[in-house]
């Protein structure tokens, strides 16, 4: 195989931007119609009343909150992983970072929609914003939901900046390779980038600041999401382990989402020369580690509840362990722990296909994990008289499906309008002023790829 040189990097990676096939339009139309269906389902739900969902007394939170936690979890793929890989200067990160960072941005946007979709009166969601109203009423800063609002907005703002900064030089490249309206648009996006030493220096500084800053923000976001549960005196919610457990779970599902996205890009955009099996193997190892960590957390959570033997907790414990939710629970353990450990732990299976199979399992498993945290606990609170169960209704299923389509659609459009692999970072070795770069950045454009 021939390593791509500067000229082929530019032509290869600009190819999807400058050429559009009919299949792209077909895909966008297909995904767009699913998203439109989801939106109209939401409007239907608002017009007909929230009772169109399967929510009941006492299961006041279910699918929507599961989706919320799931998507916020997926969002940890990007920024966190890319920030860590940047900070440790892992050479193999170069083709990976952007497709990871963009997952964060879109998954957060979708995830942040769910708390609004799940509101009884979604048209009043702006009451969470601390704006100076004539009635002088502020949001209740004691409420974990208010913390959520700030945490997610901080993370979204940070992630968008972190995504945008390294895109500036690439926008300039697109600008220089196009004409007419496209040149104008990318010219605006490139913010007058000329590639001067001063500009490179400022970009590097800004990116270093963002990389350091975004890590604590990412950790805090999912901790605060876990606080939505652990702050309430509900059996098996009220637990100190939830913070780290949720962060680990989020990174876990995030890596799985990233692997699936990368494999899809590699296949459909023909990026075999840029995304090597090595990238998947490295991410696969990371996924394996997170799978073990996740298993450790679940074991901890379950063991302490069982040993503590508190009556209310035990009701929830047994209903998930052997009761009506047990098929879901053991499916979760299988796809989140048993399968990844077998597939990714054995070197022969740690291929691209193997990684993708394990990742799909992890995505399903992590969705189930959130569902199993939300629903069984609410259905088995302290007074057995008001126990209940939950069946999802069509509106919830349709909206859930449409968010997966929305994610794919946004990702497809992004890959269409922005080089999905950072062109300048691949070429970083040939930078006009290499002295500005740390030692690690001066290696081969593709990093330590041994082929």
């Amino acid at each position, binding site marked *: 195989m021939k390593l791509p040189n500067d000229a082929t990097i530019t032509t290869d990676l600009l190819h999807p931007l400058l050429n559009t096939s009919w299949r792209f339009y077909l895909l966008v139309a297909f995904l767009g119609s699913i998203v439109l269906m989801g939106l109209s389902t939401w409007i239907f739900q608002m017009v007909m009343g929230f009772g169109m969902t399967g929510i009941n007394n006492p299961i006041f939170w279910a699918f929507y909150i599961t989706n919320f936690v799931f998507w916020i979890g997926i969002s940890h793929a990007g920024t966190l992983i890319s920030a860590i890989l940047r900070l440790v200067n892992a050479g193999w990160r170069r083709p990976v970072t952007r497709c990871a960072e963009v997952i964060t941005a879109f998954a957060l946007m979708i995830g942040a929609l769910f708390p609004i979709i799940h509101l009884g009166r979604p048209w009043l969601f702006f*009451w969470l914003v601390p704006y100076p109203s004539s009635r002088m009423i502020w949001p209740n800063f004691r409420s974990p939901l208010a913390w959520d609002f700030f945490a997610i907005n901080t993370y979204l703002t940070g992630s968008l900046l972190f995504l945008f900064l390294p895109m500036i030089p690439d926008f300039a490249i697109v600008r220089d390779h196009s004409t007419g309206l496209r040149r104008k648009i990318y010219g605006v996006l490139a913010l007058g980038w000329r590639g001067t030493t001063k500009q490179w220096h400022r970009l590097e500084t800004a990116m270093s600041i963002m990389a350091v800053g975004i890590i604590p923000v990412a950790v805090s976001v999912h901790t605060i999401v876990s606080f939505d549960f652990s702050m309430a005196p509900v059996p098996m919610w009220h637990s100190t382990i939830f913070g780290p457990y949720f962060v680990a779970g989020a990174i876990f599902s995030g890596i799985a989402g990233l692997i699936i996205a990368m494999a899809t890009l590699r296949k459909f955009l023909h990026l075999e020369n840029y995304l090597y099996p090595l990238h998947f193997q490295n991410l696969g190892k990371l996924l394996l580690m997170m799978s073990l960590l996740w298993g450790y957390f679940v074991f901890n959570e379950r063991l302490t509840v069982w040993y503590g033997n508190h009556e209310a907790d035990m009701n929830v414990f047994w209903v998930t362990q052997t009761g009506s939710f047990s098929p879901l629970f053991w499916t979760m353990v299988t796809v989140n722990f048993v399968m990844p450990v077998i597939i990714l732990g054995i070197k022969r299976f740690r291929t691209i296909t193997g990684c993708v199979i394990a990742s799909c399992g992890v995505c399903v498993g992590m969705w189930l994990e959130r569902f199993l945290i939300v629903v069984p606990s609410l259905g088995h609170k302290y007074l057995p008289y008001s126990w209940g169960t939950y069946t999802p209704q069509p509106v919830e299923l349709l909206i859930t499906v449409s968010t997966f389509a929305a994610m794919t659609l946004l990702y497809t459009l992004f890959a269409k309008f922005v080089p999905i692999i950072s062109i300048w970072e691949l070429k970083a070795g040939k930078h006009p002023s290499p002295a500005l770069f740390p030692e690690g950045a001066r290696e081969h454009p593709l990093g330590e790829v041994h082929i």
Partner: protein
Amino acid sequence: MAHKWGLAVDLDRCDGCGACVTACHAENNIPTVGEMQAARGRAMHWIRVERYWEGEFPNVRLKFRPVMCQQCDSAPCEPVCPTYASHHTADGLNAQIYNRCIGTRYCANACPYNVRFFDFFNPAWDKPLQLQLNPDVSVREVGVMEKCTFCSQRILATTIQAKAEKREVKDGEIKPACAQACPAKAIVFGDLNDPESEVSRLAESPRGSKLLEDLGTRPNVNYLQRLTEA
């Protein structure tokens, strides 16, 4: 002196007739959701009579427990509300401001007693039942939480009347609908800050206990445990 409203429920007197539930529905404009919705778990009863069986047949013992909002001093529903719809009043009630509620339903999750209810649809009454709506109580629209208020409209009316007459509220002068309707006089309402009131006297009873007291919610409803066999 500020009031601290509380209830005492004598479980020895409760025979589970359900008059309190009906009276509460009538007083507080609580919609009846119908068979279909009730089967889906959307029934709304600000007060409910929980029925528990003890023992094995034929030696069974039936227990009733009317459960309404416990108006906790340290209520888990209050801090979790992001918009202050659920908040604590000066006289110790957990108030719910319907207009301020955006329907996160977090309060209902946090409530260990499951006494908060969500309006899944706009309320409707079969004609001519809309004519019996209580004008003192607002009708709640779709998407908000509602719950027992200890009949705050009655508390307010009586305290205003007493103030106009320049006197204190007399013990037993305020009766929530459930207490008024109870044929066995099992439910007693009053001021827990007044040591002479009947509700304070009952709270001192050795049979007295509070529901799920170990959760630290400090409820203001005292249950007098049942001693008689039947």
